[in-house]
């Protein structure tokens, strides 16, 4: 566990990291980024917390069981979105021409429209959830392991 200054600053900074990560996830269909990249940004915040507090402290709030459930849920939402279009084909974009993310953008350069992309933004959220949970579990497990503690099974 590091000094009080570091812990306080980390506590404040995690909010901004979370917001930036969520921004990258949400705008994955318009700008560079997406589920994995935004998730990795959020996990970098988790790593910061891991450095500021100890892995034992963090283990109390980020429990392995919760992370497993979140990871599986993310993957299952992704698969469910892909399966939703199976009437036509797997991964078929059902939401085209619907009010939810359904607008068709004009071709050529122009400002990005957030409500486009169909199921792609939703899939970005699912992937983001999975990446946050999965990579946090990886980082946490490695930290616990190297601090000499057995990882619970």
């Amino acid at each position: 566990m590091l000094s009080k200054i570091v812990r306080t600053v980390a506590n404040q900074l995690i909010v901004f990291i979370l917001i930036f990560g969520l921004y990258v996830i949400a705008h994955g269909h318009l700008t560079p980024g997406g589920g994995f990249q935004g998730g990795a940004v959020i996990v970098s915040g988790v790593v910061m917390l891991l450095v500021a507090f100890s892995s034992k402290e963090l283990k109390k709030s980020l429990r392995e069981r919760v992370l497993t459930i979140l990871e599986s849920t993310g993957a299952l939402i992704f698969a469910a979105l892909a399966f939703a279009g199976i009437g036509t084909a797997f991964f078929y974009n059902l939401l085209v021409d619907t009010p939810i993310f359904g607008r068709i953008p004009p071709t050529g350069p122009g400002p990005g429209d957030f409500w486009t992309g169909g199921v792609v933004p939703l899939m970005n959220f699912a992937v983001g959830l999975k990446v946050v949970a999965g990579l946090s579990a990886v980082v946490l497990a490695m930290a616990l392991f190297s601090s000499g503690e057995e990882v619970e099974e």
Partner: protein
Amino acid sequence: MEHMPLNFPFLAAALLAAVSFYIMIFKKNLIKLIMGIAMMSSAVNLFLVALGYRAGGNAPIYTDVPEGPMVLPVPQALTLTSIVINVAVLALMLTMVMQIYRHTGSLDSEKSRKLKG
């Protein structure tokens, strides 16, 4: 950027690959071996991105892009996928090296050769 010789990124990728193979063949430390593989994946990723580059091209994003050619988006998608895969591979390798260290107390590849012959 427009006057950059187009072959330069490919040469850089080749150099990276050569260095990474050197590391993988001659460095006996397992962590260094993993670094070699990470460099190898960087070399391949650089190669892929360089493939999609068009002279003077813009990033393939619709948001407020000026007129003109765009670089190819497909190699960038490939690169992103390969980065994601490499994250998984590297995490797995590091976990195994930690376990090897726990069991043998050494990171030397010449010492972790219980399986041979």
